[in-house]
């Protein structure tokens, strides 16, 4: 394709007009007559045996239509991961014991909220307290309170092990022996929530043989599968309807108890049931991201070349397996992608504690592990007297390199990213400036860099996407796609691709999306694969429809297919443009001469067609994706050295996201990730005590406001390479960019102040007392010098 009219251009959002006028329908906006209100009874204890549940008083309350406990379920378990090694581990309501505060014990359906609340209060539960454990290191110790038995296949003598990932290549011991310099550090990340504005909400309506569900999710097909299984219904009996989704960031995958409960309560009552999670419930009982503790030992040559690395990651994974066993696998993955590590030993433990279950969260392990690795790399560089750019260039992977798992990084743009980031930010001129010659006043400025890489479209159920393009008689198209627009712009991107391939206008494309009954299967808006996987399925489908139009035109015009082209809803001969057939004519011709066949295109896509399955979470064996995106990000921060108060002033993101189908949407993803990362760095923390959440609201959980946004600049490095013939070689851009920038901020705080923080968040308090500790050390050193003299 020589000339691009739709892809590669910043088209306005397809869903924009609906969203600025209030017409966009979200789950909370769907109204059905006779809808009952559902409410969940949650555990007031972090760990307790359930001795007895008595729902009789609740059931007797006027206005209460149904009350369910685990005894009213089929007892079918579900899990974020469901594999032979990690089978489904969680019931939809607690059985026999609760393992975290807020765990779902029972659910009621009533005529209104007040009645539902009263009913919940009338359910009597007798508990027997069990000792609880919150610190994963404590939980691992043999003899610690047992949340669940350790995984039978994990040989270590630890308690509460939900899962383990381990891998090794090269010879790590020899690598360290051959290193000129070895350094060990420990890093910690903290608990953060996703912060989607739309709360979790589910409306379910059982119609005798059909479970209709509207729910705020990230992928209709995953929800259908898990709901159907736990309800013990055939997939065809469950329909997830399309609604717009008000943000997810990883927090709306998987099955949530309230979704099951709404459905089950509807089956029992025969009426629609809606359950809305309050923001407090989302904070104190729903799933957050995953705090990791990371021990890293790295050996390098004098010139900074990494020789060996040994990493141990411990995940505080909460009361069930959740995505805890995935994040310890991914932390390995995000270790191996950007830099060459000839010898590596990695082990990651997912440890049960009496906290709520954990979910993926934008970046899913990358922000944590990249923060750790990139912080340590800066320390190593400084110890060796190398600058932060040089050490990264020394180790960055080159195009075409094979990764240890057999994947290939293809046109990896990392080296270009690092070089351009350094150049555009004036990195080396700025780095070390304020520490070298402190300016007047109390504000110090620092600069830091962080590198990351992210995969896209990895194989997880349903593993692939299909798209159908139905041509209308007038030459416009209806696109059926299971892709869900959670704000990332999937409907816009798919429209652009279809418009491009069919040579029709953006307004000629109508998207029907995310409805399990009417649209084909889709991988969902996670695993960072929408544009790549569903986008290419859309390309195939539109191309398939175009080919059919051309074939009919060829017959009709008597011009060989090879000499026909399309433009503005017309098929024409490239030799004689007067030989032409409009789409309308072509479709009519197809119907007239081909048994009534109208024109419908089909397209399918999947990452790594030859690869049967996703890689092993336990051993990391197996390929992952053909789709790696790379980035280097620079942060400039300001710190008030008297108060420790710090802020991000400027962020630069240089990335290789492949071909940007819609550059303005790419920019939107970048800005959003910068904002989320600066919240991670400086502001946000879910505070807990003994498993209870202290700040279950947006006043005390401090997500960035409009005041905190920094200047965010970006550049894509090797777009031109893709522009020539590869406009669909898209890569990931939706979650990988929360990581390098987090590390960059840590490194920039150090650059500004000399304070090295090994744990997030970088609060004013930590920075200030870091400064005071430095001051004390310096005084001591000068005193010793004086004494020595």
């Amino acid at each position, binding site marked *: 394709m020589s000339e691009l009219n739709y892809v590669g*251009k*910043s*088209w*306005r*959002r397809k*869903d*924009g*007009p*609906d*969203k*600025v*006028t*209030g*017409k*966009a*329908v*979200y789950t*909370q*906006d769907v*109204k059905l007559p006779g809808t009952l209100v559902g409410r969940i009874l949650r555990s007031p204890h972090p760990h307790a045996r359930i001795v007895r549940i008595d729902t009789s008083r609740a059931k007797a309350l006027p206005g209460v239509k149904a009350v369910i406990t685990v005894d009213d379920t089929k007892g079918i378990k579900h899990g974020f991961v469901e594999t032979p090694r990690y089978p489904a581990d969680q019931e939809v309501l607690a059985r026999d014991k609760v393992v975290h505060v807020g765990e779902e014990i029972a659910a009621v359906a009533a005529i209104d909220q007040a009645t539902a609340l009263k009913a919940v209060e009338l359910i009597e539960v007798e508990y027997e307290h069990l000792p609880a454990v919150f610190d994963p290191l404590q939980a691992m110790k043999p003899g610690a309170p047992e949340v669940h038995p350790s995984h039978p296949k994990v040989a270590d003598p630890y308690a509460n092990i939900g899962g383990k990932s381990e891998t090794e290549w090269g010879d790590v011991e020899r690598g360290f022996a051959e290193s000129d310099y070895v350094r060990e550090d420990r890093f910690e990340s903290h608990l953060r929530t*996703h*912060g*989607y*504005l*739309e*709360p979790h909400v589910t409306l379910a309506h059982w119609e005798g043989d059909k479970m209709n569900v509207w729910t705020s999710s990230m992928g209709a097909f995953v929800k259908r599968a898990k709901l159907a299984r736990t309800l013990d219904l055939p997939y065809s009996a469950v329909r997830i309807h399309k609604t*717009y*989704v*008000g*943000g997810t*960031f990883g927090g709306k995958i998987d099955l949530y108890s309230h979704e099951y409960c709404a459905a089950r309560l509807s089956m029992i009552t025969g009426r629609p049931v809606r359950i809305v999670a*309050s*923001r407090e419930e989302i904070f104190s009982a729903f799933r957050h991201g995953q705090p990791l503790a990371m021990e890293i030992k790295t050996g390098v040559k004098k010139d900074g070349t990494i020789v060996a690395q040994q990493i141990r990651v411990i995940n505080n994974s909460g009361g069930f397996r959740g995505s805890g066993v995935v994040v310890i696998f991914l932390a390995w993955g995000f270790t191996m992608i950007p830099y060459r590590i000839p010898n590596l030993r990695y082990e990651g433990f997912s440890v049960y504690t009496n906290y709520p279950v954990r979910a993926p969260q934008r970046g899913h392990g990358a922000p944590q592990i990249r923060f750790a690795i990139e912080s340590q790399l800066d320390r190593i560089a400084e110890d060796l007297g190398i600058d932060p750019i040089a050490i990264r260039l020394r180790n960055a992977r080159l195009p075409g390199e094979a990764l240890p798992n057999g994947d290939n990084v293809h046109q990896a743009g990392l080296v270009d990213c690092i070089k351009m980031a350094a150049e555009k930010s004036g990195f080396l001129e700025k780095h070390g400036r304020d520490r070298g010659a402190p300016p007047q006043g109390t504000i110090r400025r620092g600069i830091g860099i962080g590198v990351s890489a992210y995969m896209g479209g990895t194989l997880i159920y349903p593993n692939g996407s299909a798209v159908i393009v139905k041509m209308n008689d007038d030459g416009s198209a209806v696109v059926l796609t299971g892709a869900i627009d*959670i*704000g*990332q*712009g999937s409907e816009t991107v798919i429209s652009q691709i279809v418009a491009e391939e069919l040579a029709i206008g953006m307004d000629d494309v109508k998207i029907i999306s995310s409805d399990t009954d009417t649209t084909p299967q889709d991988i969902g808006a996670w695993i960072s694969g929408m544009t790549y996987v569903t986008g290419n399925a859309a390309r195939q489908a539109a191309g398939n429809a175009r080919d059919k139009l051309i074939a009919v035109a060829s017959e009709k015009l008597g011009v060989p297919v090879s000499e026909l082209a399309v433009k503005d809803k017309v098929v024409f001969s490239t030799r004689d443009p007067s030989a032409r057939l409009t789409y309308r004519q072509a479709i009519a011709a197809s119907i007239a001469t081909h048994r009534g066949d109208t024109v419908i295109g089909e397209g399918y896509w999947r990452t790594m067609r030859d690869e049967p399955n996703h890689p092993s979470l336990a051993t990391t064996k197996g390929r992952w994706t053909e789709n790696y995106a790379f980035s280097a990000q620079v942060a400039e921060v300001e710190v008030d050295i008297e108060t420790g108060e710090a802020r991000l002033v400027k962020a630069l993101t240089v990335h290789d996201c492949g071909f940007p189908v819609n550059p*303005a*949407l790419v*920019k*939107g993803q970048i*800005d*959003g*990730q*910068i*904002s*989320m990362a600066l919240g991670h760095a400086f502001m946000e923390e879910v505070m807990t005590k003994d498993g209870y959440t202290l700040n279950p*609201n*947006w*006043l005390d959980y401090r*997500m*960035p*406001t*409009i*005041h905190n*946004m920094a*200047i*965010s600049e970006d550049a894509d490095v090797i777009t031109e390479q893709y522009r020539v013939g590869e406009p669909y070689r898209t890569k990931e851009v939706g979650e990988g960019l929360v990581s390098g920038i987090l590390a960059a901020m840590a490194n920039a705080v150090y650059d500004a102040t000399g304070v090295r923080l090994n744990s997030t968040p970088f609060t004013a308090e930590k920075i200030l007392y870091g400064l005071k500790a430095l001051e004390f050390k310096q005084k001591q050193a000068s005193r010793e010098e004086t004494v020595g003299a």
Partner: protein
Amino acid sequence: MLDVTKSGLGTGTRAQSRLVSLQVNGEWHEVAVKPRVTLVEAIRDAIGLTGTKASCESGTCGACTVLVDGRPVLACITLAIECDGKEVRTVEGLADGEKLSALQEAFLDQGAIQCGFCTPGMLMSATALLERSPRPTREEINKALEGNLCRCTGYNAIVDAVLQASDQGVKPVMK
């Protein structure tokens, strides 16, 4: 200590609903509400305008912002009964028929929307700002939108949209 032993009305008593008149986007609506019904519930459930979003329902995120007599208020912590006889404007009232307001157009042009859940409230706060201050400074924009959380966009595009709508030299980035 707080007097929590008292629990609303005594048992057996039910607060009477009262008829409240709201002029919503130019049309008068009469709704019967109990005192405890909030403005966002009245707008979404009784009047049926669902463009206004309920997010935190405790006054901490701004998603439910509507204009009452021209002032941006948090509809989730405003009692509907307190708005009797007042003019209420919601996101549905911003466009003039099919014609979007300059601010709505600017949100589309700047990519100031992603998931769209904060958008109605954001638009209402920004509309109130522009009515009071037609060419706001960046600082004024920040102050006037500080009560509206957005998790998707990182805010820069939103600031640009307000600058574009107020004719301060910012050009559309999307077409």
